[in-house]
């Protein structure tokens, strides 16, 4: 009864009167370039992110080529980029490429695709809103990001090349002593701008979720995708500013000669401290890895339920676990710095807090398995990629324990084990999650279906090599190979591992090549894909109750939400096995009527 009353109050006639229907812009620039429409901005972010994914991926291929085939020219591109060395990647370029590979993938591929594109697309459509709370801010966020991307691209062409101090840009590798060129300064500018864009987006996302949920859409009726993106937004708003502060001080050190990170002054004179940057970086950096993975977790949690035709097992527990992890991620950053010489007491505290993350992680991981357990699973491409996320994230999560424990971390620190671990968690899992999301929501975004056969080939030719690549890295790391080595075959103690490295490179090249299947599928479906119906996957979340693609204002009438997001196989529903979120059960009284106009 109380619930009924709440619905009636929610459905008051003036509620959501602020969400007017604006006429659709007609000019090209207003419609496609400086658009305020969250769906158009989502597409802009998607194209933008895919461009950088291709760029960062190509750089990864070149890096692996150098490790697997040292001293040989990278086919075709090598001759063009490094003619003076006969196409062989020189050491300075190698450092530059692994630095920029990390930076571009994290800030310009994963963030735009998962957060920029799917955050923008899904939040309003899934919570039943006509647009974001602040459409102008949304547009600014995208174009600020473009400025940042330009700074990064320009940095490749300045004297001495792009930044080469690692994606963390630790001083003194990143101060004038280590990086005299303008590339590192442009890197700082780029990171600062993309961070500002992230914060603008985050403020918008949080406000939209808090304020614009359709009547009846309580927090615990939101799809888990929205939960994931919302938690990511909160972490973004709170912790990206810490990185901004860190790079701001680095900028002052580089341009105005300040001493923040300059070690070496005497005790009495008071000196700067390079370790200070590491603190700032990792206070941001640890939440950042959850910023990257949380949207994928949420999306996968939804998709597993959708394609198992079962309600998500432990829906609330999953949402709460993700929230607890978001909180814990704020207080564990010290585990990245076990070897800098911090107090053992502090290290142990950080280790304990880190290990605590396993508890909520195990909860939602088991919920994923519970969701699939005895489900009527439909193995469509999005589902295959979702199961892939479960698999690679399991590997990545378990290897995290070895790095969270001080004793094993001291051995494994800065080894390829770390590289394998974080790629499994925030590269493989996130990439597979992004593909799942693209295959799943492509019909809603573009009104066309993607090709299932190509999609399945793409899945199998991705999951197998991606597992080999990153598990191979775990093995060579455990064997003692340091990360960022230019020429592992030059060291006697690593020569027995070279065979593994060769195979990792071969798998990586296969992985890279198989992405062309995706490119072909994406582009051909865009042009000639089968027309998508309103609800091709037969699921109940609100975006599937409107046409594909949705009209400019999303909902003609703001929906009244009466169900959770995963109402599958309800015994009272006849003729289909799903129920839309705004569709009352046949046994319930007729709908209370939708509101607003």
């Amino acid at each position, binding site marked *: 009864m109380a619930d009924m*009353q*709440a*619905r009636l*109050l*929610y459905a*008051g006639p*003036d*509620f*959501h*009167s*602020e969400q007017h229907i604006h006429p659709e812009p007609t000019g090209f620039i207003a419609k496609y370039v400086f658009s305020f429409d969250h769906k158009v901005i989502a597409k802009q972010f998607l194209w933008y992110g895919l461009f950088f994914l291709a760029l960062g991926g190509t750089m990864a291929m070149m890096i692996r080529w150098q490790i697997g085939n040292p001293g040989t020219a990278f086919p075709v591109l090598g001759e063009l980029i490094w003619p003076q060395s006969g196409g062989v990647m020189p050491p300075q370029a190698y450092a530059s490429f692994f630095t920029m590979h990390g930076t571009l993938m994290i800030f310009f591929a994963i963030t735009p695709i998962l957060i920029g594109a799917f955050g923008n697309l899904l939040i309003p459509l899934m919570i039943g809103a006509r647009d974001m*709370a*602040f459409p102008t*801010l949304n547009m600014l966020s995208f174009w600020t990001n473009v400025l940042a991307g330009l700074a990064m691209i320009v940095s490749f062409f300045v004297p001495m090349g792009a930044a080469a101090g690692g994606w963390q840009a630790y001083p003194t590798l990143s101060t004038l002593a280590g990086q005299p060129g303008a590339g590192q300064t442009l890197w700082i500018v780029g990171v600062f701008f993309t961070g500002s864009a992230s*914060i603008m987006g*985050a*403020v*918008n996302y*949080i*406000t939209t979720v*808090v*304020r*614009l*949920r359709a009547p009846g859409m309580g927090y615990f009726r939101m799809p888990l995708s929205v939960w994931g993106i919302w938690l990511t937004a909160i972490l973004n*708003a*709170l*912790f*990206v*500013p*810490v990185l*901004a*502060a*860190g790079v*701001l*001080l680095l900028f*002052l*050190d580089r341009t*105005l*000669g*300040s*001493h*923040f990170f*300059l070690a070496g*002054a005497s*005790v*009495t*004179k*008071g*000196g*700067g*401290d390079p370790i*200070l940057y590491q*603190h*700032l970086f990792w*206070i941001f950096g640890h939440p950042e890895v959850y910023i990257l993975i949380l949207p994928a977790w949420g999306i996968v949690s939804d998709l597993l339920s959708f394609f198992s035709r079962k309600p998500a097992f432990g829906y609330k527990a999953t949402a709460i676990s993700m929230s607890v992890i978001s909180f814990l991620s704020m207080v564990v950053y010290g585990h990245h710095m076990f070897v800098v010489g911090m107090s053992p007491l502090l290290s142990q505290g950080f280790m304990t807090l880190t290990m605590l993350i396993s508890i909520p992680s195990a909860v939602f991981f088991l919920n994923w398995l519970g969701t699939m357990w005895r489900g009527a699973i439909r193995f469509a491409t999005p589902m295959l990629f979702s199961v892939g996320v479960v698999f690679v994230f399991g590997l990545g999560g378990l290897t995290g324990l070895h790095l969270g424990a001080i004793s094993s971390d001291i051995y494994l620190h800065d080894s390829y084990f770390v590289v394998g671990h974080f790629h499994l968690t925030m590269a493989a899992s996130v990439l597979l999650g992004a593909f799942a999301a693209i295959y799943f929501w492509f019909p809603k975004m573009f009104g066309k279906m993607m090709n299932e056969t190509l999609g399945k080939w793409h899945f199998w030719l991705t999951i197998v090599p991606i597992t080999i690549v990153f598990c191979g890295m775990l093995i060579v790391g455990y064997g003692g190979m340091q990360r960022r080595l230019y020429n592992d075959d030059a060291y006697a103690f690593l020569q027995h591992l070279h065979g593994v490295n060769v195979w990792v490179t071969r798998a990586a090249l296969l992985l890279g090549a198989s992405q062309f299947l995706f490119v072909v599928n994406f582009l051909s479906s865009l042009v000639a894909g089968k027309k998508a119906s309103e609800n091709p996957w037969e699921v109940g979340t609100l975006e599937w109750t409107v046409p594909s693609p949705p009209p400019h204002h999303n909902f003609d009438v703001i929906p009244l939400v009466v169900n959770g997001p995963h109402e599958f196989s309800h015994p009272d529903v006849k003729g289909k096995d799903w129920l839309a979120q705004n569709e009352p059960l046949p046994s319930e009284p007729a709908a209370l009527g939708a509101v607003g106009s």
Partner: protein
Amino acid sequence: MTAVAAARFPARDESRRTSFVGMVMALASWTMLFGSLFFAYAILRLRAGTWPPDGVEALPRLLPLANTLVLLFSSYVLHRGVRAAADARFGALLGALKATLALGSLFLALQLAVWIPLWRSGFRIDSGVYGSIFYGLTVFHALHVLAGLVALLVLVPGARKGRYRSGRQSAVRLSAMFWHFVDAVWVVMFVAVYLL
């Protein structure tokens, strides 16, 4: 957002509440930004044996103290202005905006009066970590004061025309929130950098 809240607030307040939530999140973000700078200061200071470091003169306190009072008074004046707008006394709002603009400009002028003699005496951003902290924090803050002044200046024409009627006051309220935030940061900065 509970049903009760939806019932309590009339529809015209919806948009104002949305922008309020957004501003709170934006200020939370800014708090983390300044918090990180204070954290950096704390770490560097804890690492130093003596503070100020040997051979560096302690910073002046009288002028910055006066400046703190200027900013606090400006916050009070602006607060009165926002209250006046709520009562539809637009003349008072305009007066308060002008007074805040004057006080904010006075603050920046006094900041220059602190910086210039110090800089001339050889105490600069590149002359050691103490100078880096001092100029890094205070100049970065002053840029925010400048941004706050621009935000208030933009409001003046609207206030003159009496545009900020009930239900249209978000711009005034949000700019005032930012101004109070920048003032609060200054108070912490004054205590941390000049007094402690």
